[in-house]
């Protein structure tokens, strides 16, 4: 401690300390070379950060994308009972198939509030979301809880062999008036 004190005390009237003197004369680092070193440092920094973020960006474009199949064959129209919600594609494809007197439609199992999967309640005849209590009728129309819009429907068509094809790439939203589209509903 006492030695430290000695070196740190500089009397203002005395000669300038050795270090200051040296820098002024520029024998070690001149003003010009300081700037070239500074630009080299910055360039290295920018290159390193740029390389890092390029690599990060590369992560967003993987070589292989494992995407679940968006289009699937859902059997024949006669496989579905009138007036019932069919749960067979819920786990695998996230689709409820509903058949009414006129035809069949494919409902998305994603709640329009925050994306949980509602449960079909056969006694209450509604889809009820366990996360925030949104409720949807069998048609997909929202009537309970915070869900702001009806469940989405998927494109549903008939293949040449008479099987149903559900295409999840194409969505139909009721609030945009898309449910009247012929491909949103399969007339049977």
């Amino acid at each position: 401690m006492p030695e430290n004190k000695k070196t740190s005390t500089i009397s203002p009237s005395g000669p300038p300390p050795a270090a200051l003197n040296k820098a002024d004369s520029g024998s070690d680092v001149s003003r010009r070379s300081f700037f070239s070193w500074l630009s080299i440092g910055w360039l290295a920094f920018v290159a390193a950060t740029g390389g890092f973020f390029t690599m990060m960006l590369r992560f967003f474009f993987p070589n292989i994308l494992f995407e679940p199949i968006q289009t699937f064959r859902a059997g024949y129209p006669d496989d579905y009972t009138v007036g019932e919600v069919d749960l067979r594609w819920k786990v695998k494809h996230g689709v409820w198939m509903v058949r009414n007197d006129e035809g069949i439609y494919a409902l998305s199992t994603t709640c329009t509030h925050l994306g949980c999967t509602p449960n079909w309640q056969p006694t209450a005849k509604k889809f009820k979301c366990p996360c925030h209590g949104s409720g949807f009728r069998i048609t997909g129309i929202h009537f309970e809880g915070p869900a702001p819009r009806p469940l989405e429907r998927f494109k549903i068509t008939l293949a040449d062999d008479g099987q149903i094809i559900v295409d999840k790439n194409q969505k139909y939203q009721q609030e945009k008036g898309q449910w009247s589209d012929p491909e949103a509903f399969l007339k049977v």
Partner: protein
Amino acid sequence: MESFKSVINYISNPTILVTAVLLIFPFIFPPTEWFYKINKRLRLDKLWTGKGLLVMTVVTISFFIFGLGDYNFKSIVLKPDNVPISGLILLLIFFTWLSMSQAYKNDALVEKGKSVDEYYDAPNDKVLVWPDLVYVELISLILFSAFMLIWSIGLPAPLEQPANPAESPNPAKAPWYFLGLQEMLVYFDPWYAGVVLPTFIIVGLMAIPYIDSDPNGSGYYSYKDRKLSVSIYLFGWLILWNVLIVIGTFLRGPNWGFFGPFEYWDSHRLEALTNVNLSEFVYVKWLEIGLPQSILLREAPGLILVFIFIGVLPVLLAKTILKKYYEDLGPSRYSIFVVLMIFGALLPLKMYLRWLFNLKYLISIPEYFFNF
């Protein structure tokens, strides 16, 4: 016993519970002189004495012990996820008591003309980091590590099945510290309850030192000089955050429905909750003309109402009840203060509208993902 349980179940109905809490709150944490006098007259300040703490703790613990006799209550309380919340209730009581008792003690000291409890008159007001502070930190570190270790062994949190997006658990509950947010999400669109409101909470907390620059009570606990500030803060903390967590933990059951603490969690319970937007109330129920085609016209009632609430109300308040605050704070700080207060008040207001009138949204424009 059964009748007591059914009474508890009945008053656990959110409308009754929250109304009761809102009515009792200003008398326990008086925001104004008028409430403060009643608080003193009703001897409610006795809560912040040693006896008060004993009574509050004993009542809470005996309620829990009594409840453990009930199968439904027991299965909620003893679920490993929920144990911290039962502890939270006790800790909340203790720490609120700690600060309030210190504040009331200081108020009494100031009244007598003495210096406050925290006042420390020493020529060299310093404590050494090493060893004094580091030593205490080390002891706390060891004790808490031991505590957490024993807790995690005693109440294991086992891994469940791999997450399956097609199968949400029923009820699907957020971690306990987010249950307040989840409860808010029941009444609002995700962009508002999940993004805007949490931002307001954080910004509001950061704005406190700029809005409230009153030097009174700086450096020590006090209540008498800072009635409104303490009351507003505790309202936000205790009611808008912790009561919502308690509701989310103990009163939310299957399908995110309300269940009393002693009620069986029946996932097939039938509930008729047809929620209606304000536009439907106005055009379909009252005017009986059907919804207009134009979105702007359709949502005009809600837009006007929200404009009155956010645009007109602050001006009105500045000219009437909050005139003193407007003059003290100046226009910019006053606007921030009032807007924060209004957004804080909107939350319970919207909850009541939902509970009482099944109102879904004031403004509902699903076409553009805007619902309020």
